[in-house]
């Protein structure tokens, strides 16, 4: 395999890591250290690597020991602090997926394999994740024989009853056994969200170094890593080696290096006695220093008076159980004096460490422990699991050696190679009085590198304990936080990028707006037309023209985004009386009333109109941005405060498409599209045919002009819009709507209000009922702070310069000096007034007062006026009389399904493995109370009935509310788990559920083993269609 390193062409072998391939090519120096710029070489063989950091493609920082070599790989070393290449193109296709299991086993070494076997054979659903391309853990690096054969034969012979994910690193362990694991794939990582009933942590152990002078030279390497390069990759990390063996694993490394052809000169063992070995053993001694050539590369090792010419120093400093995930789970570690390491102590979640992760370093004891852990996790022991024989020596107690004192003039001794933290740095920290390892970490930055101190953490603690004269257990460790290894933002984002980063909600009229060149505004997740520029108009010109049409002729707006809630029940009126400040139980059937809703704190929460459709049936509209919040708010009060009231709520926001027709000539348009509604009085409603289909017309005005809100089911929305425009209405957007309402002094929740404004502050005391015994927020209106007279109130402002537009947010002062009296909330050019005007919230001001509006360096002199600028006597409300009865609109009322535009793309993205289509229209009803005996149960006393069944009284027509997409085929499940967090396993999934898919709510129904129907809110249908197409392409 060919690859390049810093542009130099090299070759490696299949199965190499980049680090192995670099060693194979004789590369000793792979980079310079971050602060001191010292040459550094490969130090480890796994994710604990502190030195050999490289840039590959768009990934700015990777450990060379974790990069699998592939043909054509281009790697660059990081010099100093490195930098992000902003021009790098990231072509990865990352993804995510949700998995569920009884037992998750992390780590595919002897203990993890044994646990998987034991748990899987007992019938549990098991997932095994391992970060290497092949299973085996340390057996991959070993020459150990199991039952007389190479250990990997034992691994290969295991028939694992589990879902096995290799190249997958468990990176984070969160609450309630939620584990995030990153699977490395050639096309981009996949982030697995795994929910496990029980977790077995067979994460192994990391070898550590010792802080001796000159311990950072290229050529100094962990002993087990040198052994791994020799055994697994057939690469000699040096020709002449010294082994520094604080633990017996150093002797195993010495033997394996010798077997690989490395000339091992000596084993330096700090313990009083060594083990019998074929090489010289310096017992009771330590490595005291190193020598290097001009490049800084290791040339020799000193042990007291002895000096060895060596190019490899293999350091077996002892082992640290990889307690990262255990600690992330909330478990507490304890220091084990015998092992001289922190080991898992008290568990906090349903997990159990096994094998080397709890200090059982022998292969046989790890396998035995794995069997026990697997059986315990599955809750059942299966017979017939045997621990294979092998000829391991019992391990002696390691030396608890953390540092070797420097002598004057010797090289620095490093505790953290990645962050260039030396023993002297740690001494400086403790010398200033720091006692906590957390303080020392932050002061010195030890343990904060990309490796998160995997090789250095224990050394820092050990050095601190020596410096402070305290036991390592008293010093303690720093907190282990996710992720275990670095996770790129691209991985976290997955497919939720670009157009899919946040759901975009669209109305039934969206394509028509796009075709007309509308400029859109984001309102929550909605795309709303902001204005409709014609012939190169700028915004100001377009808005002036749209306003003029609404004030002098007729104009139309897409009002579909307003929340619509169907409210039914004998106590519906009583309920509304309690949540609105004004009265609804007395409202006549067929009448509409504007209302304001307050929070318990008395502040305005939302506003809208409510219409009484029948005695026990109302329709409430909400603001666009608050629709979901109001819907939830009603449910909260019903369920938690007034469960005795007979009332239910159904969202019909997406069922209806709404076109507001406004202007003195609006009646002409209504006469053509809904002739039966033409005589409708102000604030009245009629259920009438619209373009021949069942519709609803409300005579509601948000502009002061004659206006109607015309509703038809979603699929006819576009036809209605086209008809209204064809009949002469000028399309207008949200900006014109804002100007028109502001001219009338109508406040907008969230623009004039900010959660600290009462209805009285808005000058709407008239809407707060004094007759009602109570309503939500009433008591708060009598609180001293709410009732005081010097609160900010809604006022109008006119700038002295009629052309000057005061900035929204400008502060109001008297004569330009503090205190601030208030702020400007709305500011527009007005075609009707021929000048600019503003609304503001201000205290202690009256009409005629002179103020200064300050924003930035601009100050405008303004005069306070009443906040109604246009038609204060409401003379325009009834518009022009009908000149002549126009002919009914003759055009076709075409039905268009919400995903109609996707039909061809669905077909193109479909494969035999997964086929996607929109299910043809079927009527749907939501049913409350009595079980209809059909359909899908959505919740307590709540059903969805679909199909050609005769509706019963009280059923709410929601045919347009949801769009049904169907995903079928053997890979349908694989598509859904990339966005649906619930367990779809047939043993668990009841057949349908309300849950999340991607970033939207759905009803998911399995209609056959490989066919799913997805019921999605119609306004989210486009987003979900795009998401599903993307998911099919990512398969």
């Amino acid at each position: 395999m060919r690859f390049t390193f810093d542009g130099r062409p090299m070759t490696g072998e299949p199965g190499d890591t980049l680090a192995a391939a670099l060693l194979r090519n004789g590369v000793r120096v792979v980079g310079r250290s971050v602060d001191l710029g010292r040459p550094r070489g490969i130090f480890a063989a796994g994710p604990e690597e502190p030195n050999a950091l490289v840039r590959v493609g768009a990934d700015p920082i990777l450990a060379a020991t974790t990069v699998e070599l592939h043909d054509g790989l281009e790697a660059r070393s990081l010099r100093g602090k490195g930098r992000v290449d902003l021009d790098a193109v990231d072509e990865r296709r990352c993804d995510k997926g949700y998995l569920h299991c009884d037992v998750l086993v992390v780590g595919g070494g002897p203990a993890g394999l044994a646990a998987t076997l034991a748990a899987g054979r007992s019938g549990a659903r098991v997932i095994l994740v391992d970060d290497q391309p092949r299973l085996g853990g340390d057996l991959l690096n070993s020459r150990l024989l199991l039952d007389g054969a190479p250990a990997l034969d034992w691994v290969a012979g295991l028939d694992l009853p589990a879902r096995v994910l290799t190249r997958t690193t468990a990176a984070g362990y969160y609450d309630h056994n939620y584990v995030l694991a990153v699977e490395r794939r050639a096309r981009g990582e996949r982030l697995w969200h795994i929910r496990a009933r029980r977790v077995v942590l067979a994460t192994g152990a990391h070898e550590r170094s010792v802080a001796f002078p000159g311990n950072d030279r290229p050529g100094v390497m962990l002993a087990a890593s040198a052994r791994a390069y020799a055994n697994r990759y057939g690469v000699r990390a040096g020709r002449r080696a010294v082994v520094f063996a604080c633990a017996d694993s150093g002797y195993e490394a010495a033997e394996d290096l010798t077997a690989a052809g490395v000339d091992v000169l000596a084993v330096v063992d700090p313990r009083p006695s060594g083990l019998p070995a074929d090489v010289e053993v310096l017992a009771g001694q330590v490595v005291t220093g190193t020598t290097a050539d001009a490049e800084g590369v290791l040339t020799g090792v000193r042990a007291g008076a002895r000096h060895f010419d060596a190019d490899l120093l293999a350091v077996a400093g002892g082992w640290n159980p990889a307690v990262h995930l255990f600690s992330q789970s909330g478990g507490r570690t304890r220091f084990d004096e015998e092992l001289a390491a922190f080991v898992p102590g008290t568990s906090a979640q349903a997990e159990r460490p096994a094998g080397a992760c709890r200090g059982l370093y022998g292969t046989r004891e790890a396998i035995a422990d794995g069997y026990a852990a697997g059986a315990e996790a599955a809750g059942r022991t299966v017979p017939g699991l045997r621990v294979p024989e092998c000829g391991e020596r019992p391990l002696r107690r390691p030396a608890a050696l953390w540092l070797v004192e420097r002598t004057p003039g010797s090289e620095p001794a490093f505790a953290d190679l990645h962050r260039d933290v030396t023993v002297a740095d740690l001494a400086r920290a403790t010398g200033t009085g720091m006692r906590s390892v957390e303080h020392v970490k932050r002061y010195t930055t030890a343990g904060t590198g990309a490796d998160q101190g995997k090789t250095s953490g224990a050394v820092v603690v050990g050095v601190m304990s020596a410096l402070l004269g305290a036991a390592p257990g008293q010093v303690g460790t720093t907190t282990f936080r996710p992720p275990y290894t670095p996770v790129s933002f691209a991985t976290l984002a997955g497919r939720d990028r670009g157009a899919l980063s946040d759901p975009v909600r669209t109305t039934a009229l969206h394509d028509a707006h796009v075709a007309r060149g509308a400029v859109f505004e984001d309102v929550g997740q909605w795309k709303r037309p902001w204005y409709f520029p014609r012939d190169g108009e700028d915004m100001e010109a377009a808005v002036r023209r749209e306003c003029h049409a609404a004030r002098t002729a007729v104009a139309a707006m897409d009002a579909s985004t307003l929340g619509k809630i169907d409210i039914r029940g004998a106590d519906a009126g009583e309920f509304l009386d309690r949540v609105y400040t004004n009265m609804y139980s007395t409202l006549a059937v067929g009448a509409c009333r504007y209302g304001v809703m307050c929070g318990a704190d008395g502040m305005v929460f939302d506003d809208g109109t409510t219409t009484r459709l029948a005695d026990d049936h109302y329709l409430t509209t909400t603001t666009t941005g608050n629709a979901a919040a109001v819907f939830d708010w009603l449910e909260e009060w019903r369920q938690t405060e007034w469960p005795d009231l007979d009332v239910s709520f159904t969202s019909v926001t997406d069922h209806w498409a709404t076109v507001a027709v406004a202007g003195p000539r609006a009646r002409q348009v209504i006469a053509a599209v809904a002739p039966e509604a033409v005589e409708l009085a102000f604030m009245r409603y009629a259920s009438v045919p619209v373009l021949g289909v069942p519709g609803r017309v409300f005579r509601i005005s948000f502009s002061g002009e004659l206006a109607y809100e015309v509703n038809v089911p979603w699929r006819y929305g576009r036809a209605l819009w086209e008809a209204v425009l064809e009949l002469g209405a000028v399309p207008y957007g949200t900006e014109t709507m804002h100007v028109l309402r502001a001219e009338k002094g109508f406040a907008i929740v969230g623009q004039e209000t900010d959660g600290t404004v009462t209805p009285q502050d808005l000058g709407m005391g008239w809407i707060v009922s004094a007759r009602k015994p109570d309503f939500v927020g009433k008591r708060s209106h009598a609180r001293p702070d709410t009732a005081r007279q010097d609160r900010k109130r809604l006022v109008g402002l006119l700038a002295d310069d009629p052309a000057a537009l005061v900035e929204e947010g400008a502060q109001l002062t008297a004569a330009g000096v503090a205190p601030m009296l208030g702020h400007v909330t709305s500011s527009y050019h007005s075609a009707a007034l021929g000048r600019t005007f503003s609304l503001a919230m201000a205290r202690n001001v009256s009409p005629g007062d002179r103020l200064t509006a300050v924003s930035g360096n601009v100050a405008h002199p303004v005069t306070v006026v009443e906040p109604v600028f246009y038609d204060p006597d409401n003379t325009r409300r009834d518009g022009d009389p009908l000149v002549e009865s126009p002919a009914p609109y003759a055009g076709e009322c075409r039905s268009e399904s919400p995903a109609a535009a996707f039909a061809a793309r669905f077909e193109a993205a479909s494969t035999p493995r997964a086929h996607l289509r929109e299910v043809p229209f079927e009527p749907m009803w939501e049913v409350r109370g009595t079980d209809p005996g059909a359909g899908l149960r959505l919740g307590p006393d709540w059903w969805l009935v679909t199909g050609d069944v005769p509706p019963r009284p009280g059923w709410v027509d929601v045919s347009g509310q949801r769009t049904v997409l169907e995903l079928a085929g053997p890979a349908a499940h694989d598509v859904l788990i990339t966005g649906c967090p619930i367990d779809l396993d047939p043993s668990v999934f009841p057949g349908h559920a309300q849950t999340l898919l991607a970033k939207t709510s759905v009803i998911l129904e399995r209609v056959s083993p490989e066919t799913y129907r997805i019921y999605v809110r119609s306004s989210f249908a486009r987003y979900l269609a795009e998401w599903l197409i993307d998911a099919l392409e990512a398969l």
Partner: protein
Amino acid sequence: MLLIDCPSCGPRDENEFHYGGQAGIACPTGDMTDERWAEYVFMRDNPKGWFHERWFHVHGCRTWFTVERHTVTHEIRKPR
């Protein structure tokens, strides 16, 4: 990501729910002092340990329910 046991739908991920704050705070009715009302509107307990709290299954069955959660360990149990 907490796993919350909805009484109607079974265990679901936390992001299917909205948090509803301390449970068992009834809206007081009738005449009362400003202090009593302010207590209801503004004051909630914030214990270290077991806490009765409300959750709303907004992306599921739309049920409000109460659980007991340990604010340190996040352990969740059916309310006592």
